[in-house]
């Protein structure tokens, strides 16, 4: 059984994601590395209303029978942990990132915090965006160098040192996407496009 303090981090993270309307009632998943294991949300549990029974422990290195209970995207989380420096991961279907992923090839941040934190958020495309197999192969490659990546038409994966760090990254990415989307809606030119400066293209 998960300890109360760790569970509280899951509970708060799930609640924030739900309050921000990043997911449907049951979608999205969050996890953390813990002593050679992954603690991850149970499949079918609601992120906004997590109970201790909803956090499933599964092996970090190999698929085990925890897969019968753990999130559908457990394999994506596992491959991210095995191939990047992630200690915690959040996956959400945050709408502005999804919208931009359907019309752009990357999300260039236009707002100050986005520029400071991410500069740009990569978008990748996979053959089967709804299943975990392609994402498990492609997402870790990008997260080696970026804190957040968006799978076209699906949603974002954010990593962090802690759950709250990953939470900051996914909310930050969504904030930047929302600002960019609304700027695009105005149809007006930017007074100053920071993305054209300071070697953005090389990032």
């Amino acid at each position, binding site marked *: 059984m998960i300890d109360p303090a760790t569970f509280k981090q899951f509970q708060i993270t799930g609640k924030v994601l739900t309050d921000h309307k990043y997911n449907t009632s049951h979608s999205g998943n969050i996890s953390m590395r813990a002593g050679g294991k992954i603690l991850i949300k149970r*499949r079918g549990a609601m992120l906004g209303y997590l109970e201790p029974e909803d956090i499933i422990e599964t092996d970090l290195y190999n*698929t085990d029978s*925890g897969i*019968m209970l753990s999130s559908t995207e457990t394999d994506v989380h596992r491959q991210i942990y095995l191939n990047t420096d992630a200690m915690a991961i959040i996956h959400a279907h945050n709408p502005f990132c999804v919208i931009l992923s359907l019309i752009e090839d990357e999300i260039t941040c236009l707002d100050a915090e986005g520029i400071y934190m991410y500069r740009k958020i990569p978008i990748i495309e996979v053959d089967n965006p709804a299943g975990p197999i392609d994402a498990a192969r492609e997402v870790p490659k990008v997260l080696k160098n970026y804190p957040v990546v968006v799978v076209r038409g699906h949603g974002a994966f954010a990593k962090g040192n802690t759950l709250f760090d990953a939470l900051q990254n996914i909310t930050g990415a969504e904030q930047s996407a929302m600002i960019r989307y609304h700027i695009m809606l105005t149809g007006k030119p930017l007074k100053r496009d920071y993305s054209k400066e300071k070697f953005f293209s090389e990032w």
Partner: protein
Amino acid sequence: MEGMNNQILEVNLTTEKTSVSLIDDEVLNNYLGGRGLGVKLFTENVPKGVDPLSEKNPLIFSIGPFTSSIVPTSGRFSLVTKSPLTNTIFHSNSGGFWGVYFKRCGYDGLYISGKLKDDNKGYIVIDGTKIVEIKDADHLWGLKTVKTIEKIKELEGKNAQVLCIGPAGENQVRISSIMNQAHRAFGRGGVGAVMGSKNLKAIVVKNGTQKFPIKDKEHMKRLSVVAIDKIKVTPITSQGLALFGTAALVKIINLFGMFPIRNFQSTYATPDQIDSISGEKLRERFLEDSEGCYNCIIKCGRLTNTGEMRGKGPEYESLWSLGPLLGIFDLKEITHANYLCNEYGLDTMSTGATIACAMELQQNGLIKDRSLAFGNGKSLCDNIEKIALRRGIGNELAEGSLRFAKKYSAERYAMQVKGMELAAYDPRGAFGHALNYAVSSRGACHLTGFLVASEVLGVPKLIDRFSIKGKSDLLFLKQNQSAVEDSLVVCKFVGYALGFEFQARFLSVILGKEINVTDLITIGERIYNLERLFNVREGFSKKDDTLPSRFLETLLEEGSSKGRVVPLNHLLQDFYKVREWNEIGIPKDSLLKRLSIERLK
């Protein structure tokens, strides 16, 4: 009906005559095939009070519109008979390839009645669409299942598909199975004894070539591609069951404090104990390969080798019933016991559960046999053999847990409903599942309404396992869905990946007309109620829709289901209302009218 042969092959063993009768489309439209067709034929033909081990009790094997098609996991087929364990109508189903071969011989059902005379033993051979023979089986009688199949294949060709009984069925053991290619089984309910009572050793199918044209082949292929894609990306089907077989459930069910140990006296094993018998450990120690049925990409079957013996399995339920339920956590002993049950043609679950019952009697001093002490894995195989051969105390155990316990006035130690032993989920840990144990038409069954899927595995969505309101409604839906799956016939495991609407879409393409989910649920409801009507005529009612007192009165003391008992009365009241049954569990006239079925005379 499209996708079916519209023919039943009848074999009367008493007269040794065979005949073919036609089935009306109306019957198939209302009952589909498989379990539904079997239940319809059975209830039409079997009079009240038939002794299950008499020649008047038929064995009805049947396939469905999905059998032999490209629908994923469509290799299963059904059996309906009256159970010598429960005295209820009884359906069972099995995978593999026999059903596919049978359908290709041009039949939808095989109705076996009578009994071979003068103590002659025989086996039936269905050879293509023209030849049906009853051959002598004196030389096979007494053989275990693997040897039987080997001998029959020598005679009938290596491509012959064989259903057979082992010595347990021959000896009319009430917990015997009909084995399908030695390791798959028509399990539960003692159906092997029914076959044994007819002096029938085996049923062989071969050389079928019948094809089933689909009007819109391309549509069928597209649907199949979408279905297979979903099965491939769903972790339970593509990883959990594929990597660890059904034993993937060992750790999961223990995690929720529902893993029954020592005849349900405890429901939680220590981490070391559970690790030693987990699906992971089975894979690590003994797995040689995995195996699937016809047109299955899940491949949950286990080909195993312990270093001393090779065989197949154990499945989750077998691993549990021959292990922790008996206080045994030695994986090799459990695996060998599983092989032996398959060889003798014994139902692993009821065999383990009956021995567990005996062990609790021994624990309480009601029997003295030290080989029946909890944890005694060394004597397990001996006791299995005694049951199959009805030797010594095995003759008493061969009657199943309830009859055995009654003999010692100790029914409270028999963990059964209507005579059939419970499966590997303590009902105190999942109330919807508990309700299904109580009301299932074939006794304490886990398959006819597997609410563990929703209550534990979160499929399709998680529901509080201890909630009461709404559970009856959900069970109503699941039971009807299960009846349909058993009639199409398709494996229940695809339900983890595919919504029920897939079944409706596949059937619509096969039939060339639209069938929706609501239509299918009504068919399932019709089948379920026809089974209930049969049981009601046999004298079953509310008094039988119950659970052993342990689950109603004794609080669990450890694990995450601690402090729980099953609130059965609340659940049952709602269930009868949802089912439109009266206060003692009898279907109301208005329901029968809606479903176009009649009370049985």
